[in-house]
């Protein structure tokens, strides 16, 4: 063997680059790849609002101009726009949760995911964090971006129609609005946690028609109670779960003048309300059950 041949022999196992695995991070990325609506749905609604604002710029500048003299319409406009984005994100979260643990079984890809060194806990937690943290963060970021664009669009509009910019800027407490939006998003998300948990649980059990399985038992319970006991504890309890968050997060006296805002926030009362903590505990139990159930589940 010549020396040249010796050299040509490849060295034994060069130091292999060791990946530091980040299964949780990549599992979340995976969810975003599969469910593109998580990013697109809120962004599309915000884009549509901007388009409407541009198309009807004369109408909105007039509103601002009138609001300068009368009731503050600028704040209202911004809050309505924000609530459309937040509602979209919430609905996206609801449908996401219903599908999260069902679609991988339906398309048999669960066999692929389970062939990889990612635990059921990591997988389920990465799915639970989508409605609990990712979507709220998306909703806030999109709202913020939309509000900034709205200010720009309206300012340009005011300039075009030769109105004073101060008519917008003086009646728009921009940062307070953002803080308010963030407060609403955080309080509602935490309050709705058991709803998302319930939907995830249904998606981990059901084989099809997850929405039906999620809703029918609750509706049936309300109906049965009303029919059998002529009481409506279940109904009230459900209503509390849906609307109680806002009630706990804000003290809003209707007779007071003005819009609901940060001044009405009652974070201490909210944090002290048992409904919040019981809901979070229920969420934890639902997620725990999802993890246990996924272990036994294969393709359907």
């Amino acid at each position, binding site marked *: 063997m010549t020396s040249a041949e010796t050299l040509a022999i490849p060295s034994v196992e060069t130091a*292999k680059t*060791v*990946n*530091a*695995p*980040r*299964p949780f*991070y*990549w*599992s979340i*990325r*995976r969810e975003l*790849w*599969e469910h593109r609506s998580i990013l697109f749905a809120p962004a599309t609604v915000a884009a549509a609002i901007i388009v409407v604002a541009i198309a009807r710029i004369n109408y909105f500048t007039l509103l601002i101009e009138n609001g300068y003299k009368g009731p503050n319409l600028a704040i209202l406009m911004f809050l309505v726009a924000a609530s459309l984005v937040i509602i979209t994100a919430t609905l996206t979260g609801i449908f996401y949760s219903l599908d999260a643990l069902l679609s*991988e079984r339906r*398309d*048999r*890809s669960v*066999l*692929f995911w*389970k*062939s*990889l*060194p*990612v*635990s059921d806990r990591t997988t389920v937690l990465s799915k639970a964090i989508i409605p609990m943290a990712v979507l709220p963060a998306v909703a806030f970021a999109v709202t913020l971006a939309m509000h900034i664009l709205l200010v720009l669009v309206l300012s340009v509009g005011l300039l075009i129609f030769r109105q004073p910019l101060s008519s917008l800027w003086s009646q728009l407490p921009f940062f307070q609005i953002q803080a308010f939006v963030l407060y609403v998003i955080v309080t509602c998300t935490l309050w709705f946690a058991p709803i998302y948990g319930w939907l995830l649980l249904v998606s981990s059990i059901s084989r099809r028609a997850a929405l039906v399985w999620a809703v029918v038992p609750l509706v049936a319970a309300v109906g049965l109670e009303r029919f059998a006991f002529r009481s409506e504890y279940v109904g009230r309890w459900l209503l509390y779960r849906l609307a109680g968050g806002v009630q706990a997060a804000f003290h809003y006296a209707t007779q007071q003048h003005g819009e609901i805002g940060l001044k009405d926030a009652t974070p201490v009362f909210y944090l002290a309300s048992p409904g919040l903590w019981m809901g979070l505990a229920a969420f934890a139990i639902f997620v725990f059950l999802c993890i246990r159930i996924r272990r*036994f589940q*294969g*393709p359907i």
Partner: protein
Amino acid sequence: MTACIEAQGLRKTYGSTAALSGVDLHVDEGRILGLIGPNGAGKSTTLDAILGLIPYEGTLQVLGLNPWTQRETLMQQVAFIADVAVLPRWLRVNQALDYMEGIHPRFDRAKAEAFLAKTSIPPKARVKALSKGMTAQLHLALVMAIDAKLLVLDEPTLGLDILYRRQFYDSLLNDYFDHRRTILVTTHQVEEVQHILTDVLFIQRGKITFSSSMEAFETRYAEVMVGPENLNAARTLKPVSERQVFGRSVLLFDGLEPEKAAALGEVRTPSLADVFVAMMTLQGGIQ
């Protein structure tokens, strides 16, 4: 030699039907084992148990780990391909690579990319845009880039045409198998895996009914085409099975001396499929 898979009295029941009724298994490192059985014999259930996808009764150790309680750790060293349709349709090729690189400590992205470069798979295509054959190639590329000790294949070439099937097993042998890894494969296309196997197991009604290395298998069985004049003599030698081909009898013998066989008629080495069919028919395995 270390055992890669060690199972004793493996049982699994679904409701009142027993999918596995006491499977004993010992697979050494560096083997290519074919697990062959009729539909519903318990092949997939065995694999599911080995992969930690289902709970079971009995003892089972894969690479020294308990698959049911230590699936996550086990899967760092085990790769698995089920039939072609398990890659999610929405996944893009480059996303698959990103994901594997991100979660798998033993995944070598360059290796997967090199393999993919030899195919006509577009790097940004979604799985749903790929043909069945391409999807199998993609899955194979992902799996071969994992430095795994055990590769489990469950009907990996189901629904692929002959070109892709050939290529699939050729790639596996040439680019992947290195005598330190172990491969466990189930398939119905027995003829196509025969030449790559080192060991074979027949499974029937939840039990292992036959186990042999391929070397032993090839010397053990003989198929003799017996003319009518020798038929009665041949039958006294206890053939495993007898069938008619073009009016002549073909008898399968287990452990018959070559001289005796040659005296009876034309001898050939039966294929795995021949022996499989003979044994399944003999034991009433085909329901």
